[in-house]
């Protein structure tokens, strides 16, 4: 073993000190020859004969040196270095080709690496928690009634945690926090902050360790204990300048002194995992005893005991869930719950699985197109270089040596492309990670990691082999004599060559066609989504979180809200203003079943609508349509007749025969007069069908917060300052909350679709350009080669029009074959992405027709340039050439 190491060390040494070794050998050989000559002279030969014999006996001088080098150095590396040198020389000579090739490869590989980074982060890598495979999301199966039906009450949570046998521990967080729900004061102007209540073992269950201080203990979550908070790492850096002594200090939250007990690690990003696109600043313990009489508030996340499988845990949960009480004080509230277990990873990213796979495939198509394109370019080059190769073969270069040379070339190109691609991918991932407006989970973690690097190397090598070997085989298979003869005048190097390039172009067009049709379908779906009637008018409206202190009194609240709205409406440019507690497409909640007065329902039969608490004027500010009846007014006072407004879907559910206005509904024994019906609002997602909604006046029901919505003809941004100033005048504690255009909320909701659509469309555009390049290259090359033929045709009377038609016909033939194959393949592929489409069928004729037209026109355009050139060939000079 030691000898082996020693030998290799020596070999490496001699590889780098070649000259020294060569000189040494040179000296040795010359002394060898001299000694041989001397001996021959002694035997009586004449001097010339003596030298000749000595040289003969020595054998091939160069061979001996070569063997010496092989024996002492690294022959493989030697020849690689040689190939590399040669490659750089040829590429430098053909700079335009090299630049184009590297650019194309860089785009292809960059797109692939970037997409792989996204796929890796979201799909492949485990969640950023300890032993993430043990984590399970526990929730009732999804229903129509929003978050409230996907969560558990404090009692149910506690019972489930105690009674199950499958989990090490179960934790949860409060599902109904809104953004900017805290006000941080005591450091200049009040600043908004987003906080979430988590049950006390939340971080222990996830396996998150604090970077400073400690996590919550049971004492922190006891009723009446001193309030404490954990800070998110980003928030600690941003708001507290990464103060290393923050632990133990008190901060002022909503007018209460809260002690900071720790700072979470940078790797923990609550928003990235549980509510994509949102940032959460701080965490406070969820005190179960404070919430016993509330509704369903908590999500549940469990950590499985080692060795317990998901089906076992599910069986366990199926036993435990029906035994849970909504509220243990009321025995009739037993048996309301189910518990469906999903691996946390699936809960977080499961919906995106198909989209990401589609994206991955699309970008793989791009790489294929790039390879085909380069193979094509290289074939063109190879044809031009066939004489060079024939010469090298004639001079004794082996076939494998030539292939190795070509592979070296393609590897060099691919590596340069990969370097460029990595730069592009790095830029893209940086952009994606730092842009909060795309609601995709874990996106902020996206980076070009080790996996992506390995993937890049892999695709680079595969791509180099793909586009390097094809021309390599062709060249090495070349018939020597023919190739050398081919350089002579007027010979064409056979139809075989043309056919291969034709096949490449056809496949390129077919691949581009599939990509374009896929992108077209996604684009059309996206346009359909944008066209959806949201039930409100997102443009020209904006919302801001309002701080108020009503002390729990509806009367006081009425006064405050009325005052705020009258001041806001007085601002020039404000057309309408209103207040709501939950904006659409965000969080929502539910207050249980709403029944028609006097009607008997079976359990679960009555609808449970989503609840919104609003002020008069909100519907107008939001741009909602009142279908029947009237809006709330300030006369609907706290002590007056309790009134509600319902949406059309709920009206249909309660009073199918119509005429809901004036009817009486009942919730928990309280009778409510329906005074109006509004159009359905897409409350949970833009694409899902709207559910049941009920609106209560803020004068009579308790809101969960206040979002002031303003409608204006001006750009909403211009009002931000005056609105905030007005709110500050009324309430000095008003934090500098963000003024969010409603359109932004809608954009946020459709951002995943926009993200995928945009990417696939970019890839398709890239594919189209590459295909056009391919067509242009082939047609242009064939025109060059057929210059003489065309010259003869023109000399015999063909008009320029005839010639153009001839070339264009060849172009169209290639394009149409490609399109035909592409369309057939697309029909199959489109069915696979059917679930990603919205409002169109996978075989949408408009998309297919449009793409066929686009491809055909691009092909004609790509063919037209060489066709024009062909038609301008001067017959005389064409015939005289060569």
């Amino acid at each position, binding site marked *: 073993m030691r000898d082996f190491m*020693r030998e290799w060390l*020596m070999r490496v040494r001699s590889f780098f000190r070649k000259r020294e070794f060569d000189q040494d050998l040179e000296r040795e050989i010359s*002394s060898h020859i001299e000694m041989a000559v001397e001996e021959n002279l002694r035997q009586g030969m004449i001097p010339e004969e003596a030298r000749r014999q000595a040289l003969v006996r*020595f054998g091939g001088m160069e061979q001996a040196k070569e063997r010496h080098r092989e024996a*002492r150095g690294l022959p493989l590396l030697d020849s690689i270095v040689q190939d590399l040198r040669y490659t750089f020389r040829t590429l430098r000579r053909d700079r335009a080709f090299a630049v184009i090739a590297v650019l194309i490869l860089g785009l292809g590989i960059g797109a692939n690496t970037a997409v792989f980074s996204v796929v890796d982060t979201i799909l492949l890598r485990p969640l950023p928690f300890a032993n993430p495979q043990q984590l399970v999301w526990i929730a009732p199966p999804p229903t129509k009634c929003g978050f409230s039906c996907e969560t558990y009450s404090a009692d149910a949570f506690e019972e489930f945690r105690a009674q199950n046998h499958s989990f090490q521990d179960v934790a949860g967080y409060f599902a109904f926090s809104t953004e900017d729900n805290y006000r941080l004061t005591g450091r200049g102007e009040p600043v908004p902050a987003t906080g979430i209540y988590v049950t006390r073992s939340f971080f222990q269950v996830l396996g998150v360790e604090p970077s400073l201080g400690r996590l919550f203990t049971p004492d922190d979550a006891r009723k009446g204990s001193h309030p404490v908070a954990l800070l998110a790492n980003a928030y600690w850096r941003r708001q507290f300048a990464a103060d290393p002594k923050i632990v133990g200090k008190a901060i002022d939250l909503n007018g209460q002194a809260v002690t900071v007990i720790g700072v979470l690690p940078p790797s923990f990003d609550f928003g990235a995992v549980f509510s994509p696109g949102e940032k959460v600043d701080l965490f406070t313990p969820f005190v179960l005893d404070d919430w016993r009489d509330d509704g369903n508030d908590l999500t549940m996340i469990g950590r499985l005991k080692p060795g317990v499988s998901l089906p076992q845990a599910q069986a366990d949960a199926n036993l435990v869930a029906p035994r849970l009480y909504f509220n243990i004080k009321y025995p009739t509230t037993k048996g309301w719950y189910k518990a469906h277990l999903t691996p946390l990873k699936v809960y977080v990213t499961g919906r995106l699985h198909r989209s990401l796979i589609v994206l991955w495939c699309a970008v793989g198509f791009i790489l294929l197109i790039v390879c085909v394109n380069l193979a094509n370019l290289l074939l063109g080059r190879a044809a031009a270089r066939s004489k060079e190769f024939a010469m090298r073969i004639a001079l004794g270069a082996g076939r494998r040596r030539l292939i190795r040379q070509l592979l070296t070339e393609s590897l060099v190109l691919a590596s340069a492309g990969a370097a460029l691609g990595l730069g592009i991918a790095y830029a893209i991932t940086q952009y994606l990670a730092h842009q909060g407006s795309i609601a995709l989970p874990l996106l902020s973690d996206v980076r070009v990691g080790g996996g992506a690097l390995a993937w890049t190397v892999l695709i680079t090598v595969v791509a180099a082999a793909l586009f390097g070997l094809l021309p390599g*085989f062709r060249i090495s298979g070349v018939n020597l004599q023919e190739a050398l003869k081919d350089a002579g005048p007027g010979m064409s190097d056979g139809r075989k060559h043309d056919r291969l390039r034709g096949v490449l172009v056809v496949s390129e067009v077919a691949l581009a066609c599939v990509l374009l049709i896929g992108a077209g379908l996604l684009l059309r779906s996206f346009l359909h989504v944008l066209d959806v009637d949201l039930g409100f008018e997102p443009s020209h409206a904006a919302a801001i979180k309002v701080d108020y202190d009503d002390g729990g009194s509806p009367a006081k609240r009425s006064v405050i809200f009325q005052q705020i709205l009258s001041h806001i409406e007085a601002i020039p440019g404000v057309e309408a203003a209103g207040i709501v507690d939950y904006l659409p497409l965000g969080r929502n909640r539910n207050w249980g079943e709403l029944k028609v007065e006097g009607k008997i329902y079976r359990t679960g039969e009555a609808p449970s609508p989503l609840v919104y608490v609003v002020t008069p004027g909100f519907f107008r500010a939001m741009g909602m349509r009142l279908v029947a009846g009237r809006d709330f007014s300030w006369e609907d006072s706290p002590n007056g007749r309790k009134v509600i407004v319902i949406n059309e879907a709920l009206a249909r559910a309660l009073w199918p025969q119509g005429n809901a206005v004036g009817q009486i509904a009942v919730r928990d024994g309280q009778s409510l007069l329906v005074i109006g019906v509004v159009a359905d609002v897409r409350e949970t997602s833009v694409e899902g069908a709207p559910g049941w909604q009920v609106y209560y006046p803020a004068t009579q029901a308790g809101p969960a917060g206040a979002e002031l919505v303003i409608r204006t003809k001006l750009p909403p941004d211009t009002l931000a300052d005056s609105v905030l100033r007005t709110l500050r005048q009324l309430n000095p504690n008003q934090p500098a909350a963000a003024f969010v255009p409603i359109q932004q909320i809608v954009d946020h909701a459709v951002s995943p679709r926009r993200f995928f659509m945009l990417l696939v469309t970019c890839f398709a555009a890239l594919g189209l350009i590459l295909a056009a390049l391919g067509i242009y290259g082939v047609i242009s090359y064939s025109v060059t080669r057929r210059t003489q033929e065309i010259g003869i045709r023109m000399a015999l009377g063909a008009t320029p029009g005839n010639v153009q038609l001839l070339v264009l016909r060849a172009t169209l033939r290639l394009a149409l074959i490609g399109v035909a194959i592409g369309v057939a393949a697309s029909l199959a592929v489109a069915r696979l992405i059917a679930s990603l489409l919205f409002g169109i069928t996978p075989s949408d004729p408009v998309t297919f027709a449009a793409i066929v037209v686009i491809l055909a026109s691009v092909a004609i355009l790509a063919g037209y340039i060489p066709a024009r050139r062909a038609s301008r060939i001067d017959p005389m000079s064409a015939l005289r050439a060569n």
Partner: protein
Amino acid sequence: MWYSHIFYSTLMWDDHRREHVQGKTRPSSRHLDLIVLRTLVAMGPMHGYGIARRIEQVSGNQVLLNQGTIYASLVRLQQRGLISTRWGTSGSGRQAKYYSITRSGRKRLAAETENWQRLSAVIGRLLATPEVGR
């Protein structure tokens, strides 16, 4: 077939060797190494030309050897630490590189010699067994 041939030969770029030419034996590089080591034991420190001449004489010109090929063998043995070199002056006053066997060279030679003898005895016996069915 054709492709596999290409792949194979692309991967295995060690040299092609013809072992027998015109009734003479061309020693493989491994055998040449063995011969060189043995020669150095017999002659003491010696230059490349001397080694080559000695091999020719001892083999009675049965070995097909271009004298130049022993230099590859010499550098290989040197890099493995089996022989050592120094520049010196020959009897005729000419500068020459002298090779001498090292301790580990002697050890290797002993081991290889034993190995060789055992192998040639076995192969000799095997080849001497009578043919069947003739």
